[in-house]
């Protein structure tokens, strides 16, 4: 029986320990931040559709990481925790009065992002037209590679729900892309 991670001290340069396979691994806040900033940002972006909001959410997530007393069992656990907190932070954002007041005027989905391949953005635009619940599960499944069970654990929803959201989201995505092709044609 081992309590897996011991966070010795607070502060961004201070070490965090993970016991894994009888070996002790050390992480610093910086290690984790550098590795997972993009992961968190991408999920936040897929949920909020706005780079500005995604940046805010990402910063909140890492602030919470710095302040947490959570004991992590592995690096994968850290990642899952970050994704979970990202979802929570975006929920907080959606519930905030500021967001509710401004979002109605700000339904832009064509914000400028740093795409490497502009031609590939069709999928992105189609994704952004999906309802949020579908975007989240699709992102976690297709990008992060999580299984239905893992997504259910991260989003704290039933597996059946995740499965149906994934199925419907996928269908919707395909339909939207098909329509766009028709429109262009």
């Amino acid at each position, binding site marked *: *029986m081992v309590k897996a991670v011991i966070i010795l001290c607070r502060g961004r340069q201070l070490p965090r320990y993970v016991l894994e396979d009888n070996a002790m691994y050390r992480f610093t806040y910086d290690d984790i931040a550098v590795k997972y900033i993009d992961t968190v940002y991408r999920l936040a972006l897929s949920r909020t559709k706005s780079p500005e909001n995604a940046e805010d959410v990402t910063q909140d997530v890492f602030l919470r990481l710095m302040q947490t007393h959570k004991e992590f069992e592995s690096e994968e656990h850290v990642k899952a925790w970050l994704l979970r907190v990202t979802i929570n932070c975006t929920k907080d954002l959606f519930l905030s009065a500021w967001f509710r007041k401004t979002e109605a005027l700000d339904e832009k989905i064509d914000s400028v992002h740093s795409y490497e391949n502009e031609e590939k953005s069709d999928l992105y635009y189609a994704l952004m037209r999906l309802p949020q619940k579908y975007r989240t599960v699709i992102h976690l499944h297709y990008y992060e590679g999580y299984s239905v069970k893992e997504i259910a654990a991260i989003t704290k929803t039933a597996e059946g729900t995740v499965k149906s959201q994934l199925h419907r989201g996928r269908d919707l995505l395909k339909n939207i892309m098909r329509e766009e092709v028709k429109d262009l044609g």
Partner: protein
Amino acid sequence: MDERDMQKEYKRVFDGIHASGELKKRILEQRPRRRSIRPYIAAAGAAAAGLVIFTAVYNYDLNTDSSGVISETAVTGTERPAADMDKRERTEQSRAAEKAPVPETGAAQSGAGAGASEKTPQPSERAADSEKKTTEDYKREALERAGIDSSGNRTGAAEGRGTAEPKDGTDRAAEREAAADSPAQTETAAAAAETAAPVSAEPAAETAEENAAPAEQDAYTAGTAEAQPEIKAAKAAGGVLLNMNSPSVYRIYAPEANMAEYSTENGGALYGSAGTPEEWDNNRYFEYIGADVIGRVTSGAEVRYTGDESAYFMTDESGKPVNDSRIFVFEGGNGSYVSVITSSDMIYAEAYLSDPDLSLSDVNGTDAVVFDMDGGAYKCYMIFNGVSYVIDTEGLDDTALSGLLLSIASE
């Protein structure tokens, strides 16, 4: 587009999306956004201002006589426009004034002196005055009576009065009761007015006297807690003096100043670091570090070792671990749990021990920082014989914790 194509496409799209360099920098530096910290700054400012005002008023109350600031507070309570005053309240006050003339002597006036008695206005006068005077006027008057100038310094007159008979807690509490500007207080003040001068309300109601002692005790306790928020309690047991630090201090504690120079480069990191992996059993580690941690902990507390018998270390050319931290976990009855992290790198405990804001405990002459984390959990940081100890316990009481620390910090 089939499933696999979609996944590929999705990955390619999102692989091209990155957080901005500015965001990365902000997160790595953890600069809070201005938008988020503004309310906190405002709240902190308001709290500080409130605290300053409270402290000022409270200190005046402690050290001055009946004509001090508290009396002023009572007066302030009457400065509400007459129209706003409850009719019944005014009637009662008038009745009380008729019944109770200003006493010539007595506890209520002893501190204030005759001058103050003479100056004490009757309720009807006060009602009229209250419409003319502002809070500032009353405050200035009260301060003058207390012998404190506008800058808060005590004047000669006040020093002279300092030798006067000090007010006891009953009087102060009674004053506070009478001074409180609330409906409930109005009842008390009215009752007090039946037996005393309305402004000072010194003799106060019997009920106020009965409540005075605990009320004052609370006030003093609160004052002490404010003065020293970090220290939860000091407990002594057999060679160990535990000065508990509050968990709130632990949570906000960020010893970056102490640790600024520390990084994985100079501290050594097993993860991703160069070196030869070696499995060390516990005895080898104890020899290396110079302490039988398991023996010491099990003899100091009623727990048994449930951790690993060996651990891997990355060793350098000289065969020494690059990072020699190890964790030992113990379990006992009733869900008690102890974990001890040891290292010859002092930085872990030193970061806490060197912080002047933290309260030090004395473990048989060895300094330790102990946090009472609530819920029966403690965190302790200690250096003994060149070994840094970070100890977490759950389910141990103070005595057991003292025994454990003593056992670790004994030759």
